[in-house]
Every structure is written in structure tokens, then in C-alpha cells.
């Protein structure tokens, strides 16, 4: 069937090419021209951020504005690194995002395994509850969550922003469940004959087969945590506990007219994820396409 349609489509394009002579080439050129211009337009704010971070303050007010600095200076980065403890913020963001990602992948995979392979009492209604929570906006639960964190003594600690996302990830459970349902039961049966219990089958058979969705989900979770602003803003008060987005926002308040320093701080916040993205573009994009097509 697909060979048939392939043949047909080739026939159609050949026929069109023959009749229209130079037209498709010109259209292709126009297509790429539009895309190139718009892609540059999309990238321009980033370029502006990056190049401005290397400008001396005096060049910011030059009219008309120039993209590239006349004389390059690292003064913006000096001010940024001197004005806020970016090294600590970087460490905070990294270890928080890594911890959440690791724990949430494990607990989500465990829950997904239970939902897809174990016939326990209450499975269906519980799964529906998990799905329904994806509709609940985070702003609705933030107020009671803040009170609960107060009771636990977790306000202004990293536990407040690590534990909830590590122990609850409805989307992750849903995504991994779809995947486990696609793994043939026979693989587990063979191991069961060898006497492997549920835990061993989960660790030695299921987890390795989940590598692709776990990678996509892991990158996602890490990105979400690294970029998260709302929860740390509500729960953290002391600046030595701040994550990078909070630190940059605070820095913005203090250095409001030192644009090169602010752009340097912004670059420090944005660059790590842009670099991750450049290397993992395929996984991220596929993971995103996946997340939509499932619902």
C-alpha cells in the first residue's frame, strides 16, 4: 500500500515538474527565503542578549542600536558574578533538578508498572484520579501547599521544591504506562519461569526497555525544574538557597540599569539549556511530539 502511494506521489511530482518547468525551484527558493528570515528573527533576541552581555555600558545607548559590540568587554560578567552568588545558584539549580529528575523517573516508572501489569484492587479509579489531576492548575494548590510546608517546617528549604515534584508526576506515570503496555508480557513470563520476582523483573527487564521514554521524560523533567520560577518564588526566601531563575530575577531588581550585567546574568541562565538542547534536539523534539499525540 505504501509502495503504491510512494509510486503515485513520485509520478505526480515528476508530472508536475515536467509541466511547470522552472516553477518548483523558484517556489523552493521563496520557501527557504521566508524560513531563513523568520528563523533569524526568532534567534535575534538571543543574539541581542549574547552580544549585549559583552558590551560596555556606554554602548547600550548608542542610536541606532548595533548588534555587535564595538569593543568587547567581560565587565558585564564580572558585575554579574560579583553581584550575586551565581556559582551557588548554579549548584542549587543543578542538584535540585537532578534529584527531582532521578527520583521522579524511578517512582513514575514504578507506578506505571503497577498500573499496566498488576491487577490490584482499585486500579481503574486510581488511574482516573491520576489523569484528572493533570487538569488542576498549580496555582490552585499552591496556597494549601504553602500551609502544609509550614506544618512540615519546609518553608525556605529545598525539600519544599524537591519532594512534591519527585513524588508526584501524573504525566510521567501516564506516559510510561503507555510504553509498558506496549512491551510483550512474554518477556516477563520467561523470567518468571526462572524464578524472578516482580521487583527483579521490573529492574532487569522493564527498566532497560524503557530507556527511550525515560530519556525523553528525564530531559523534560530536568528542563521543567531548571526553568521553574513559580514554586521556588513562593517557597524560598533566603538568597543563598535561590535557584538560578530567582537569582537572575533578584539581580534584575538590583542592577536594573546595568544592561550588560543583566544580559550576562541572563546568558548564564539560558546558555546551559540551549547547549543541552543543541545536543539532545532529537530526543527533546520527539518527546514533545509524543506528549501531545498520546492525549
Amino acid at each position, binding site marked *: 500500500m505504501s509502495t503504491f502511494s510512494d509510486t*503515485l*506521489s513520485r509520478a505526480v511530482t515528476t508530472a508536475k515538474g515536467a509541466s511547470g518547468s522552472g516553477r518548483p525551484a523558484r517556489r523552493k527558493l521563496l*520557501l527557504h527565503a521566508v*524560513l531563513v528570515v523568520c*528563523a533569524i528573527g*526568532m*534567534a535575534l533576541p*538571543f543574539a*541581542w*542578549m549574547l552580544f549585549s552581555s559583552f558590551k560596555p555600558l556606554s554602548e547600550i*545607548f548608542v542610536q541606532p*542600536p548595533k*548588534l555587535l559590540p564595538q569593543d568587547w568587554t567581560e565587565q558585564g560578567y564580572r558585575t554579574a558574578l560579583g553581584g550575586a552568588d551565581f556559582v551557588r545558584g548554579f549548584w542549587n539549580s543543578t542538584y535540585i533538578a537532578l534529584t527531582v529528575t532521578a527520583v521522579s523517573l524511578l*517512582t513514575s516508572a*514504578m*507506578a506505571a508498572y*503497577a498500573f499496566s501489569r498488576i491487577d*490490584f*484492587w482499585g486500579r481503574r479509579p486510581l488511574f482516573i*484520579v491520576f489523569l484528572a489531576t493533570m*487538569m*488542576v*492548575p*498549580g*496555582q*490552585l*494548590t499552591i*496556597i494549601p*501547599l504553602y*500551609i*502544609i510546608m*509550614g506544618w512540615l517546617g519546609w518553608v525556605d528549604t529545598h525539600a519544599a521544591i524537591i*519532594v*512534591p515534584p*519527585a*513524588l508526584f*508526576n501524573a504525566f510521567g506515570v501516564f506516559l510510561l504506562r503507555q510504553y509498558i503496555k506496549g512491551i510483550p508480557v512474554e518477556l516477563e*513470563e*520467561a523470567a518468571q*519461569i526462572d524464578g524472578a520476582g*516482580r521487583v527483579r523483573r521490573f529492574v532487569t527487564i522493564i527498566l532497560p526497555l524503557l530507556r527511550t521514554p525515560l530519556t525523553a521524560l528525564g530531559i523534560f523533567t530536568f528542563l521543567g525544574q531548571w526553568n521553574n*520560577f*513559580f514554586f521556588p518564588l*513562593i517557597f524560598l526566601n533566603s538568597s543563598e538557597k535561590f535557584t538560578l*531563575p*530567582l537569582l*537572575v*530575577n533578584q539581580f*534584575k531588581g538590583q542592577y536594573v540599569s546595568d544592561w550588560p550585567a543583566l*544580559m550576562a546574568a*541572563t546568558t548564564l541562565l*539560558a546558555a546551559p539549556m*540551549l547547549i543541552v*538542547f*543543541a545536543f539532545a*534536539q532529537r530526543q527533546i*523534539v520527539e518527546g*514533545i511530539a509524543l506528549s*501531545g499525540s498520546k*492525549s
Partner: protein
Amino acid sequence: MAVSSAGSRARARLTSADPDVHPDRRSRRRRGRDTAAGYLFLAPQLLGLVVFMVGPLLFALVLAFYHWDGFGTRSFAGLSNFTEVMSSQRIQRAAVNTVWFTVLQVPGLMLTGLFFALLMQRAGKLTPVYRLAFFAPVITSSVAVAAIWLWLFNPDISPVNNALRGIGLPAPNWLQDARFVIPAFAIVGIWQGLGYQLIMFMAGLQSIDRSFLEAAVLDGCSEWQKLRHVTIPLLSPTILFLSITSIIGSFQVFDYIYVFFDDRAPDSARTIVYEVVRIAFGEFNFGAASALAFLLFLALLVVTGCQLAAQKKWVHYTE
């Protein structure tokens, strides 16, 4: 032979009855053990569900009917929190701002997303390069995005305003002018969110069976007719999904506003979520803030419900 019978018994243990034991007793024991194992695997996420989601959700519902600052005594408020927030002019203004932002952002996102997805479908080998440019803002922290645009909207130094003046258009003071501040948020939102829509539309386009389009070509359809009568109907599940998720996201806009204005946003720039945060953590009026958050949630449920109810009229599922 022995292997296959062991295999079938293993399968029986995984799925249904074991012939050696009376079915009722066996299945009850089996079920009990399965339930124990199931909840063991589920335990961490179940704990999270109860403590960080269902518990807070019920708690929020209770809070909405009380006066409480989080520390002192709690007193029953009846519906007064709801009437208070609904009659507040400030919050009415915030609701109008939120809807205006959504009206600007959602069609902007979806139309540009679809447009570029259609173009990129034909971009061939250069697709990943274009995709990189369009998608980079999606994975960037909204704080970084807002900081960049804080600059691009500053009338004194903005290259955007310079370009606008260059082509003879008025250059507004984006964030200080009450008429332009919400459109400015929408511009930032579209710049940041476009890549996501693009990826989703490209995935949708890829799943369209080419034979439909080829049939349309053979029938002599123009490009526009092909788009209008074949591509868009076949994309309708993607369009429905994106319209639901974008409206939910737009109703919750907060980060940009907070980075642009901290806690000093003018009335013209406030949205519902900004008000929820201000009432809860600025005034410590947890009851009113919970009531407002609940009204937002209800509004989202109604809008999503309407979209799902209307889908029968225009969404086509193949298969």
C-alpha cells in the same frame, strides 16, 4: 513439552486461573497478593498524590469558605470570599486582562505554528536547522525570556522600537502604556511558545496519510483547497489538543509579569494568577485567594468542557 507447560502456567499466574486450586479461593488469594504488590509499587506516587495534590485540593476548597491569614484563628466565611473577589473592580480588571491576553495569544500561536509547520514540511534537509531557531525559546527559562524582552521593550534602547520608527510606525512605550502592555505579553508569549506549536503541528502533519493529499491533487485541487478541505480537517485532533492546552496555559500567565514588574505591576498589567499570588502572599488573605483560584479553575473547566462538547461538530478522527 515440560517447558511449554511451565510457560503456560507462568502465563496463567500472570493473567488468569491456576488449575490446581479451586478458582474462587485461588483468585481471592491471588488478588490479595496482587493488591499488596500493586500498592507497594505505587506507594511513593500515591503518597505524593495524597499529600501534594488531593489533600491540597480539598484543603483549598475548605479555605475558600474561611477567613484565615495562615496564623490566627479561622472563621467560617460562607460565600463571602467569593462575593468579595467577584465584586472587586481590581479583579474584574484582572479577569478582562487575562481574557484579552488569551484572545491575542492563542490564535497568534496557533496560526503562526501551523503556517511554519506547513512551510517546514517542505524544507527538506534544513528542517533541523530551522527547528533549532524556532524551538530554542521554548526550552529557555521564562525569566531569561522576560529579561531579554524587558530590554527589547525599553523605549530608550529598544532595537525593536528603532526598527518600528525606521519603517514609519509609531513606537509605543510597551510596558508603561496601558493599551500596549497586554499585547506586549502576547508578543513574548508567542515568541516563546511558537516552537512548541510548530513541533506539534509537524507531528500532526506527518501522521496524515499521503494518499488523501495525492487524491486531492489528482482531483485537481489547488494548494488552498488541499489545505482547506484535506489537511485542516485531518489535523483537527491536533488543533483541538493545542487549543485546549494553549487556553489553559494562557489563563495562567504569571512569570513574565512578575519579571517585568515584580510585585508592583500596574492595574493594566495584572492577571488573575498575579492577583491570586498578591492576595495570598502579599495580603495573607488565604481564603479570598483560594476562592479566586477556584473560580479560575472553574472557568478553565467550563472552557475546556465547551471545547470538548463542540468537537463533534468539527473534529475528524481517522480510523
